[in-house]
């Protein structure tokens, strides 16, 4: 059982506002094992992001428990939010600075990541000089630089155009596997979820509960793009599509 990295146990979450309360998560339990890539799909506004925020410890559950004992989360948001006044190097060191862990060693490690993933030529460039895909990659390296154990990916590709999105999901998949990270991806894109993950959770409409769970095993392909061509891909897609029950638009 020491292989469990994230353990969510009977968690409920209610958002309170002056105008009323909104239940976002309803008695949710899930576990993620070390090295696993888990995707969460669900209708928009179903509370997927709330689950990531709970795991990251940014919000507290109303009831139940979330534990990632001893493991360090690293969050990647939908938009890159690079700081315009810092160059690429300054941006990827932000997390280390904030965590007061910026030593020559960790700095070299971060710059090494930049090098490994083909961005070292842009270290002195400013965010506005980079393309959307490159910016998102810098954002990922900023997250990785703090050496997290679990990556929480909140629709990290949704602000990109389709081609960039496919290419980047390949690269991010590569990076995550290379660095042996555990990852939880939240997305509304069924194909993306199937092509990247080992396991897929389908959430219900808000308040979020787990509707079903699929172990993804595809007979071919070791990159998300190649995996999309596996014969089983379409079957997974159809099943998940039905479960999502996108009744009305």
């Amino acid at each position, binding site marked *: 059982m020491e292989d469990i990295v994230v353990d969510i146990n009977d968690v409920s979450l209610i958002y309170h506002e002056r105008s009323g309360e909104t239940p976002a998560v309803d008695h949710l339990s899930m576990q993620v094992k070390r090295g696993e890539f888990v995707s969460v799909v669900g209708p928009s506004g179903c509370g997927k992001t709330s689950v990531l925020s709970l795991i*990251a410890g*940014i919000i507290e559950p109303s009831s139940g428990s979330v534990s990632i004992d001893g493991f360090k*989360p*690293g*969050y990647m*948001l939908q*938009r890159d*939010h690079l*700081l*315009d*006044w810092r160059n690429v190097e300054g941006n990827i060191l*932000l*997390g280390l*600075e*904030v*965590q007061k862990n910026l030593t020559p060693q960790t700095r070299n490690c971060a710059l090494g990541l930049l090098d490994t993933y083909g961005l070292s030529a842009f270290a002195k460039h*400013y965010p*506005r*000089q980079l393309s959307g895909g490159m910016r998102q990659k810098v954002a990922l390296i900023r997250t990785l630089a*703090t050496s997290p154990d679990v990556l929480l990916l909140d629709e990290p590709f949704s602000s990109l155009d389709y081609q960039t999105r496919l290419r980047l999901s390949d690269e991010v998949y590569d990076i995550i596997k290379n660095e042996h990270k555990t990852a939880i991806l939240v997305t509304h894109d069924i194909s993306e979820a199937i092509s990247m993950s080992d396991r897929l959770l389908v959430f219900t409409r808000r308040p979020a509960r787990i509707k079903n769970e699929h172990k993804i095993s595809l007979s071919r392909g070791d990159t998300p793009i190649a995996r999309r061509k596996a014969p089983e891909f379409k079957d997974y897609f159809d099943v998940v599509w039905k479960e999502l029950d996108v009744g009305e638009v």
Partner: protein
Amino acid sequence: MKSEKAAAYSPEHAAFLKKLENRDRFVTIARYALLILLIAMWEILARVGVIDSFIGSSPVRVAQTVARLYAAGDLFLHIGVTLFETVVGFLLGTALGTLIAILLWWSPALSRVLDPYLVVLNALPKIALGPILIVWFGAGVSSIIAMALLVSLVVTIMSVLAGFNEITGDKQLLMRTLGATKMQIFTKVVFPASVPTIMNALKLSVGMSWVGVIVGEYLVSKAGLGYLIVYGGQVFKLDLVMSSIAVLCVLAALMYYGVAYMEKRLASWRYHS
């Protein structure tokens, strides 16, 4: 970037750039021409008697008055006094205003409590407080600086705070996902991101400080450009009034451009790429 591309420009693009350049040159020339035209008209109308130069002065009389002030050693005394009061009032207003804005950003509760007070203070014509300032700070430079401070302070607080609050929650969320404290969120994201807004606020408050100082000098002063204007008006020496205003125009413009230059330097990342 420009130099790299220059060689590759097509003749059409070169023509386009030439056109832009010509247009820019036209604007510059037109600006100076207008100034010269206005001054020339003023002088001519004064000479032919359309403008009574006793109450309307004239450019030549203004120049003579400035020269006379300079010869008597008074010009730089008055400029110095007014400039000193303005700069001190401006710096105090900026420092204090930014500090208060930081406090209000830090504590939304405090901000909500003080909001109506700020609104009233902002709406209040500060000159109404003049007599109080004179009683409290004495009939001198301190009262004038206090007036400049009062006039610029509330505007600075409000615009800087608006700048802080403009920084989206998402960037703050990012910082929280990295485990940042509120202090770190402020120093690493909110403040640097607000530099352009703060600079705009400064441009505004430079103008406000001039207003405060001149009003202050109207109320109580023994020297300064505001003093010269009031004195000139009382003794019906319109040459002196006009000259002081001309000097004031130059000074205010210089100080504004000074702040604008500082803005360009400090916010240089905006001009990268």
